[in-house]
């Protein structure tokens, strides 16, 4: 099961398992944000390479406007995925 919800105007929360079947939902949801955006991943248990790709695509979109993407509360699996793909060099982490 996967859910995405708005915490505030510049923060969203991803919950559950972000696999390829959720790609369109997340793409549509994130498209409206044009701010430095914080993603709270505390309740995100799993992310696939397709999920990562959508976060990177939004990083480039927002970075092109002068904004950042901030990630917080990553579990060990998701930290590893960012480390192995060197995406930990791209995003800002709020530890």
């Amino acid at each position, binding site marked *: 099961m996967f859910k995405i919800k708005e915490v505030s105007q510049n923060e969203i929360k991803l919950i559950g398992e972000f696999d*390829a079947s959720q790609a369109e939902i997340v793409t549509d949801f994130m498209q409206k944000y044009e701010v430095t955006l914080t993603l709270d991943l505390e309740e995100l248990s*799993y992310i*696939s*390479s397709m999920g990562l*790709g959508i976060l990177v695509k939004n990083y*480039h979109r927002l970075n092109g406007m002068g904004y950042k993407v901030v990630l917080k509360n990553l579990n060990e699996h998701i930290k590893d995925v960012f480390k*192995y*793909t060197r995406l930990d060099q791209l995003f800002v982490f709020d530890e």
Partner: protein
Amino acid sequence: MSNEIKYFNRNANELPMIFHFLNTVIAENASNLKILNELKLSVEEIFMNMVRHNKTTNKDIAIRIESYKDSISISLIDHEDNPFDILNTDEIDFDEYFKQKKYGGLGIHLIKKLMDDLIFDHDAGKTTIKITKHIN
């Protein structure tokens, strides 16, 4: 050792059922959530590659899970005549990847990082990709 096989339609919407299959079989043998997620990521990547890149068949994709005392192996089996050998891919140049603002194509790199073994085999019109993860 246990050995279980299931068949799935060629559709991303099958992923929840595939994950349920993995959760059920693997949880009996490995309680480590991190290992389970690494296996799920690898299976999803291979399954979606088969769905996206093999348009020559409508046949289901088979997923076989073999659980041993100290490892888990998962094979994905598809019908195709001209397979894509995922072992025969270039290493990603990450400096270039970031410079070109790419955002996909990280899955095979991740499988190679997360799994302990990756085998590709093609025989008699069937492709088998087998991943293995050591539990201990």
